[in-house]
């Protein structure tokens, strides 16, 4: 499958073929495994297709919904295929460009969805939601923000709300006799204490880049409030040079210089869950991460979660900062769009899937069981009765009390600006550029 050395002689074909071929091949071997029972073979003509992310326990819930739908609708089955997070982001773009995308496109909404809309690749679902108000009205209204482009809804919000929270390992806090940080100053004071004890203060999967971005999202908010990034989003000139933005960038570099992150963080990827492993094995004391990691830490961490050793809190305030301490960032939901080039039958199947299988009662129950807050209204009693009510109510509280729920920057911005952002964030965390250079590099792509 991979082009081997002997064929290097035909250089021309390689110069063009290898990068693309290898990229596709590596995507191909990395993740996809058909799932969603009973939908192979003749499914192509009438059946719809659906691509979504792997990683348990979320993968099992998605697959479960597909299987239930297929059982109820044996004549119009949906074939599901799973991908790893970062591989999927590339794969779906390539598939859209090649006209080979699945009927149901899983995504994060925001700037990426906007680029699909501009390319005419996804259907406007506004009329469908108007005809089916029951489907729309049972979901959190806040989840529709990232699905709405220029006043039209292009995606069905789905799954669970995923704020970013500060996780910590209670065992190692007890070990050095420290309390969880209540402010940024506390964080900076904890860093030398943990380092002295041979424990990394923070775990970070820095090679994935968006993991570093979560730090900036919170620091920008706590220092300058949500207005700072809003100005970038609204394409105001030189928005990144805001003094609050420079201050937040300087603070994160101060934390890096103080060895706040685990040694070697830029070699660690989030896709392998190694950053979570550092937290539950006690090699690191804290981790800023999405609430989706709770499920995998419960599965992989032994008694770490079930034994009550995992602590969590909202990101602490920064003294003198303008942001409200209740603010959060993350994913207000996940989004399912319908591919515009799918056949009418496939689109019908997809809509039926949206109406009957997505966030069905069984699925809602599964999300709650794995420690997630689904974006469905009126689940308070179910959350209180679940296995881990404290954790669920904590998330529910963050999501419902937040004065501002910022969308992940790389999803809110256009893909072009997002790639520059991620690149510059990687360099910022390497300390190879200064906050001012970061701001000027980013100002250059504002509005692109």
């Amino acid at each position, binding site marked *: 499958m991979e082009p081997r050395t002997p064929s290097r002689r035909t250089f*021309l074909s390689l110069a063009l073929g290898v990068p693309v071929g290898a*990229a596709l091949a590596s995507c191909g071997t990395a993740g996809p495994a058909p799932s969603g029972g009973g939908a192979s073979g003749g499914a192509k003509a009438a059946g719809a297709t659906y691509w979504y992310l792997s990683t348990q326990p979320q993968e099992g819930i998605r697959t479960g919904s597909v299987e239930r739908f297929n059982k109820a609708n044996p004549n119009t089955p949906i074939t599901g295929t799973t991908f790893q997070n970062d591989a999927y982001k590339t794969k779906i773009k390539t598939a859209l460009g090649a006209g080979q995308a699945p009927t149901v496109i899983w995504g994060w909404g925001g700037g990426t969805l906007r*680029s699909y809309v501009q390319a005419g690749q996804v259907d406007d679902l506004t009329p469908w939601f108007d005809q089916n108000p029951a489907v729309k009205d049972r979901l959190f209204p806040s989840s529709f923000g990232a699905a709405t482009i220029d006043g039209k809804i292009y995606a069905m919000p789905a799954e669970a709300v995923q704020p970013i929270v500060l996780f910590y390992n209670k065992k190692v806090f007890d070990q050095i006799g420290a309390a969880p940080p209540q402010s940024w100053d506390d964080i900076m004071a904890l860093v030398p204490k943990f380092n002295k004890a041979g424990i990394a203060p923070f775990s970070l999967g820095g090679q994935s880049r968006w993991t570093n971005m979560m730090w900036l999202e919170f620091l920008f908010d706590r220092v300058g409030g949500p207005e700072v990034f809003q100005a970038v989003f609204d394409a105001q000139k030189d928005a990144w040079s805001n003094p609050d933005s420079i201050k937040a960038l300087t603070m994160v570099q101060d934390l890096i210089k103080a060895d706040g992150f685990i040694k*070697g963080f830029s070699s660690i990827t989030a896709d392998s869950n190694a950053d979570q492993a550092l937290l539950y094995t006690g090699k690191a004391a804290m981790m800023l991460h999405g609430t989706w990691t709770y499920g995998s830490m419960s599965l992989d961490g032994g008694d770490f979660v079930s034994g009550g050793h995992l602590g969590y809190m909202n990101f602490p305030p920064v003294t003198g900062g303008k942001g409200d301490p209740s603010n959060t960032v993350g994913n207000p939901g996940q989004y399912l769009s319908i591919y515009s080039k799918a056949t009418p039958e496939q689109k019908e199947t997809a809509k039926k899937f949206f109406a009957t299988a997505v966030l069905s009662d069984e699925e809602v129950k599964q999300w709650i069981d794995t420690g997630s807050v689904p974006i469905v209204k009126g689940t308070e009693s179910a959350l209180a009765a679940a296995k881990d009510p404290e954790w669920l109510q904590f998330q529910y509280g963050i999501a419902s009390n937040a004065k501002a729920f910022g969308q992940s920057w790389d999803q809110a911005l256009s893909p*072009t600006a997002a790639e520059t952002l991620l690149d510059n964030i990687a360099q910022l965390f390497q300390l190879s550029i200064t906050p001012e250079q970061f701001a000027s590099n980013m100002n250059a792509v504002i509005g692109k």
Partner: protein
Amino acid sequence: MSTSTAAATRPATGGRRPGGLAWLAVPALVFFVGFAVIPLIGVLALSFTSWDGIGGEILFAGFSSWQAVLSDPGLPHALWVTFLVMALSWAVQTPASILLGVFLAGAQRYRAVLAVVYFIPLLLSSAAIAIAYKALLDPNFGLGAGLGIDLLVQDWLGVPELAFGVVIFVVSWQFIPFHSLIYQAGVRQIPRSMYEAAELDGAGRVRRFFSITLPQLKYTIITSSTLMVVGSLTFFDLIFVLTAGGPGDATRVLALDMYKRGWQANLMGPASAIAVILVLVGLTLALVLRRIGGRDAAHSQQEGV
């Protein structure tokens, strides 16, 4: 496996018949045109357009992609990194491959066994190699941490110099077997009589290596170097999986830069411009290497044998 084969495969000169068999080239030509020339023209055309790669309209954009790429400070950096990868991986691979090749050319049975063992890395996919090394080099859960060897516990992929070294090492680990194989074949073609004559004149092992083996391997070295140099331009899969161009942009070679612009930033125009630059650099290098080696191709290296 000695004198007789060497004599039989001596290059034939003269007796060439022009034409007549030209049609034999047709299948290769069809493939070359279909999979190299036509895509190349497509890429050249794309480099003058703006396209997001996800199905929007392809709009003619003149030289704006070229302007964007050529004025981007990332380009000289990517070129420099590409050049470094090329030069260093050549410098590491060539001596090692020659020595291994010479060693493996011996007729002893154990050497034949070793030759098979050495060949194994070449059978693995680059992505698999990269994933394996990444796991082994993990500072927290990798080989060093597992065996308790502090020397191996480094931030291998997080420090620019180390990450670069790791890339060179893994590339060499993967491709030295292939080049050793080429050198092994080259050494076996050197007539035995030369060594016998040198031995009679009292030349030692080292003297024989430098005065007979190395000069006789000249064309093999050029072939192998061409493959290494031009091939190193297209290293993508291994670096992408191992470091993704990081830390920062320390290992972002030209091919990776092209991919990131095209598929992650949705800028197919500038990505195509980089692809064209890659092709031009590759062609120039191949031509230069041919020139160096090709000038006295008519000369026999075996005069008087």
